[in-house]
């Protein structure tokens, strides 16, 4: 197991290096320098600035310097947000984005597995069709459509049920209050709920047809125990390997959600920096996101190996 883990971790390093290299050289292809402006600076000042940012050195040296600093978690300074380093900006946005992402993931897992299991147990009946229609809609309709529509329904018009007037805030973070989190987290989780419920339905149906479930029934175990103790557990296993892609989806979705609801997370910084052409910030955030996605893919892989008794660690 340990040797497998080490091999997988080592395998992730070249991938990360490719990302860093690709991002770095793509940014260097960009026309114009980072300090070009309307007003031309005196040549001496320009030289000094370039020297301060190592821009006077050949590209390969700049690359090596950049990679060397990355090893220490230093993404360099932000070009457009003066006085801030990229790491500082990521540090500011990270708590918000992480709370959002983790909440959405948990919500998606709970609802996705439940709905998927319900669909599987009612295979080809009303419940199944309802869940699958919902899943189809969840996969097809993108977050940037669901977000404004939900904001309109729950935020602007408000919900009037049982005489209570529930109106959720449609923007702002406000220190991460629950009311402010409900809409963004729901929007972020919806497509994942859809995908997970589809996966869960498939694997649950397979599990219900398996021999060990038949054996459990044959020895007289009550139906709910068969489902919970035998079928559900086995059916949830394949979901572990979806953890990696789900992370990537949630990261991508957070760009839209943070934008629409005006949340101060990394995604918002990223979009702003892309629009402002803040090259170092764009590059830094892409590398940071890539590292998270690769890390979670790795965790999913290792977790799967640990949980699945059929996988052996030979060789």
């Amino acid at each position, binding site marked *: 197991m340990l040797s497998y883990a080490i091999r997988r971790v080592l395998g992730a390093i*070249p*991938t990360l290096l*490719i*990302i860093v290299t*690709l*991002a770095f050289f*793509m*940014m260097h*292809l*960009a*026309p114009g320098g980072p300090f070009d402006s309307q007003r031309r600076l005196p040549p001496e000042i320009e030289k000094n600035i370039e020297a301060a940012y190592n821009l006077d050195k050949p590209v390969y040296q700049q690359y090596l310097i950049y990679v060397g600093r990355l090893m220490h978690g230093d993404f360099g300074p932000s070009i457009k947000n003066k006085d801030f380093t990229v790491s500082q900006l990521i540090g500011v946005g990270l708590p918000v984005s992480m709370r959002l992402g983790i909440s959405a993931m948990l919500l998606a897992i709970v609802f996705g597995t439940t709905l998927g299991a319900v669909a599987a147990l009612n295979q080809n009946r009303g419940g199944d069709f309802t869940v699958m229609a919902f899943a*189809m809609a969840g*996969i*097809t*309709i*993108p977050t*940037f*459509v669901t*977000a*404004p*529509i939900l*904001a*309109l329904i729950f935020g*602007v018009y408000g919900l009037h049920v049982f005489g209570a007037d529930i109106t959720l805030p449609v923007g702002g973070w406000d220190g991460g209050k629950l009311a402010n989190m409900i809409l963004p987290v729901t929007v972020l989780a919806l497509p994942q709920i859809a995908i997970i419920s589809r996966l869960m339905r498939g694997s649950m149906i397979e599990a219900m047809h398996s021999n060990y479930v038949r054996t459990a029934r044959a020895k007289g175990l009550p139906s709910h125990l068969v489902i919970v103790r035998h079928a559900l557990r086995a059916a949830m296993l394949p979901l572990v390997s979806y953890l990696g892609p789900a992370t*990537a989806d949630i*990261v*991508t979705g957070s*760009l*839209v959600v943070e*934008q*629409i609801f005006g949340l101060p997370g990394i995604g918002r910084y990223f*979009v702003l920096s*892309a*629009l402002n*052409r803040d*090259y170092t910030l*764009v*590059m830094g955030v*892409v590398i940071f*996101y*890539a590292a998270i*996605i*690769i890390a979670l*893919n790795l965790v999913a892989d290792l977790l799967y190996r640990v949980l699945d008794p059929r996988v052996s660690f030979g060789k």
Partner: protein
Amino acid sequence: MTHAATADLMQRAQGVKGRSLWVDASRRLVRNKAALVSMIVLGIITLLAIFAPLLSPYAYDYQDYSVVSCGPDWWHDPSIVCHAGGSHWFGTDSLGRDLFVRVLYGARVSMAVGLVASIVSLMIGVVYGATAGFFGGRIDELMMRFVDILYSLPFIFFVIILMVISNNNFILLFVAIGAVQWLTMARIVRGQTLSLKQTEFIEAARASGVGTFGIIRRHIVPNVVGPVIIYMTLSIPAVILAESFLSFLGLGIQPPYTSWGVLIAEGSDVLEIAPWMLVFPAAFMAITLFCFNFIGDGLRDALDPKDR
């Protein structure tokens, strides 16, 4: 069997009209109601998009400041400030442009991106996958390892970098999204090629002296067309989504051109006062995506009946 009997049989067989895979498949496809309706709806949307300039008296960038953010005449809502009147069937946007024409121009961009990017991904993916699968062994391993690495990259971010450095060049956008989509295509084609390679007719072709690329072109490619078409219908909505996603963030199509993503972004800004600006582009996009997905599912059932 005697010669005469064989000849007789052959003659009779010629009289029977054979049903090819394609005839069979199209019958099954037409019988699938969801797919059939989707094809009709998609056809209508495509025609609307093509003939957009003829359908409305307004140009897509014509601004009429007397009807800024006005609702369509038939939209009955007491909170609406003004009605656009005339031929503004979907109302107008916040610059007084006709929304109907803009939604259809958005459809043009989305459909064009979907097609171009899918064709780019098709070409790269098929050539790459067929080559890897055909040669097998070390070459295959190396080529597929490369695909694996690319798979783990968050590709949409690289498209964003590309848009940032190229100043939102939208031809590049088409190509970049296509270049992202080819990976799955390459995997599908490779898998198919690997299994085809073992079949007798390839062996026969090789024995009769057909060259490597001749075999790929004449025998392998035609046989992987089925799965490739299925994947392509499923990749078109993915591409449309990717383009709208970028445009929504302001990193895709730039004004005065428009796409569904841009329109949805504009609409979500003025949601409270002009909901039609969100509703129409969102509805068009959602319907189109549903159609492609249903057609893709239908094609899968039609071309691969054993998979049901």
